[in-house]
């Protein structure tokens, strides 16, 4: 007679599964309901963005960066433009820096709101997503007013932004920041001390501080593990050192801590937006640098010099010096960076993107081993992944 032995079960989660937030496949090895090990399988959305970059001019690549992370599209523009500007040695006017901060922080709230809604939904709380989407809609209206686009804004340009903020925008943003902190309180009233919520989140998916560093975790993942990492504070860019804000850090390292970090970050972002709006300096919104930045359309109609620059920049593209730079920003998901190698031609010789969600997802196995299968869903959604960015 054959001997009866217990063996582990291999289970496929995804690639099409509501809780994978895109097309991600996780191969889970189960012992009963316990996760023994898991292997994420990536690449279902791979579009070869880094290869594509080598065939586009620096200007043409901006809209592609939007499509990497549609939850915080402007923050991709932000990182990319900063990297190119660093390569060129281009100084961005102060007004443009402030506008970028406003749009960037709105993107952060925008991204965190959608994360909150879907995360709560994954954990069985149906209500918060309707509230979160209500406020997200308000931000989309602000984006539409300022940038034209609602999801992929493509508002940033090399040297500044595409256009000055429209009339009435300041008042609309103020109206939003006025009531938004109370809305965050409302979400917290629904969740933070809710016993069912805490049962699903506290102590689940723990990532120690040491593991967080070793596995390269950044953003709310790192700050939820007691690691005070924030590029905005540590290596300020775009005038972030002008603003007074705190970086929330929680020590738990679990799903709950990551939730608390993001909730507080929304309040802090509101604070930054308020300061930037109140102190918005006058001046140009785009740098004056004829070799790199196209002149305004009106000037090309009257001045031969501006017309020549216009033609060269759009037909050939800007020609940066030979060199290589790495510039990174604190995107809603963590350290998002662009590493660009230029050979002096109008197209990047090599462009490497450091996607925060890709690196953060690497910790998934460490956080999930030994937990229940149901916890996998909670842990995965607490990482806040965007597959378009992971697969590139």
């Amino acid at each position, binding site marked *: 007679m054959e001997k009866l032995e217990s063996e582990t079960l291999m289970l496929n989660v995804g690639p099409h599964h509501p809780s994978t937030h895109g097309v991600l496949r996780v191969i889970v090895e189960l012992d009963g309901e316990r996760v023994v090990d898991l292997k994420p399988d*990536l*690449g279902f959305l*791979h579009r*070869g963005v*880094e*290869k*594509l970059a*080598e*065939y586009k001019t620096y200007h043409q690549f901006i809209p592609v960066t939007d499509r990497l992370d549609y939850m915080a599209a402007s923050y991709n523009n932000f990182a990319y433009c900063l990297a190119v500007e*660093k*390569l060129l*040695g281009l100084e961005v006017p102060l007004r443009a820096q402030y506008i970028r901060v406003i749009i960037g922080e709105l993107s952060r709230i925008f991204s965190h709101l959608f994360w909150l809604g879907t995360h709560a939904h994954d954990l069985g709380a149906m209500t918060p997503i309707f509230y979160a989407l209500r406020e997200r809609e308000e931000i989309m209206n602000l984006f539409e007013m300022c940038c034209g686009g609602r999801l992929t804004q493509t508002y940033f340009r090399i040297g500044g932004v595409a256009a000055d903020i429209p009339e009435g925008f300041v008042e609309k943003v103020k109206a939003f920041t006025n009531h938004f902190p109370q809305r965050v309180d409302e979400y917290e009233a629904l969740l933070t001390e809710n016993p069912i919520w805490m049962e699903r989140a506290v102590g689940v998916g723990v990532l120690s501080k040491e593991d967080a*560093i*070793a*596995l*390269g975790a950044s953003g709310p993942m790192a700050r939820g593990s007691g*690691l005070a*990492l924030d590029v905005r504070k*540590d*290596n300020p860019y775009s005038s972030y050192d002008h603003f007074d804000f705190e970086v929330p850090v929680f020590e738990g390292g679990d799903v709950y801590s990551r939730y608390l970090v993001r909730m507080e970050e929304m309040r802090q972002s509101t604070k930054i937006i308020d300061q930037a709006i109140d102190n918005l300096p006058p001046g140009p919104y785009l740098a004056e640098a004829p070799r790199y930045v196209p002149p305004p359309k009106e000037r090309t109609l009257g001045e031969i010099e501006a017309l020549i620059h216009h033609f060269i920049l759009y037909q050939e593209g800007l020609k940066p010096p030979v*060199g*290589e*730079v*790495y510039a*990174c920003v604190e995107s809603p998901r963590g*350290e998002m*960076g662009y*590493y660009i*190698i230029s050979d002096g031609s109008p197209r990047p*010789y*090599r462009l*490497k993107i*450091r996607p925060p969600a*890709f*690196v953060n997802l*690497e910790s998934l196995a460490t956080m999930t081993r030994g937990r229940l299968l149901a916890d996998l869903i909670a842990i995965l959604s607490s990482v806040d992944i965007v597959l378009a960015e992971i*697969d*590139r």
Partner: protein
Amino acid sequence: MGEEHIAVRKVQEALPDAIQSIGTFRDETWIVVARDRLLDVCKFLKEDPELAFDFLSFVCGVDYYPSQPRFEVVYQLYSTKHHHRFRVKTKVPEDDPKVPSVVTIWPTADWHERETYDLFGIEFQGHPDLRRILLPADWVGHPLRKDYPLRGPERSS
């Protein structure tokens, strides 16, 4: 240029024969190290208390086809203690595209090295699980190589 950077100075002192060249551009400094000294340099950069490069931002490949040595592998480092950044590179010849893996030093290198293997065909020796990560397992070729076409048949052989 670049010698004044603290990391360059310290590596020069501790491992004088490891550095092949030093580069700087826009306040960023990097060193190119010999392939067989890469692990020593990385270990030193991580463990020296004044440098403490404990955080690996990314690993990536670069293809300089048709120059030789053809490839370069780049390691972008960061210190969570001192908040400074540094870059280490190593040259890899086309006929022997192998580099020692740094997974034992920075575990996060796991996926980055898989990605570099996937897109450039550079092998990382000592990597625990070197498989393709973004492309299907049966894909032919390595798309980020300069001689790989941007468009063309799905699978060029």
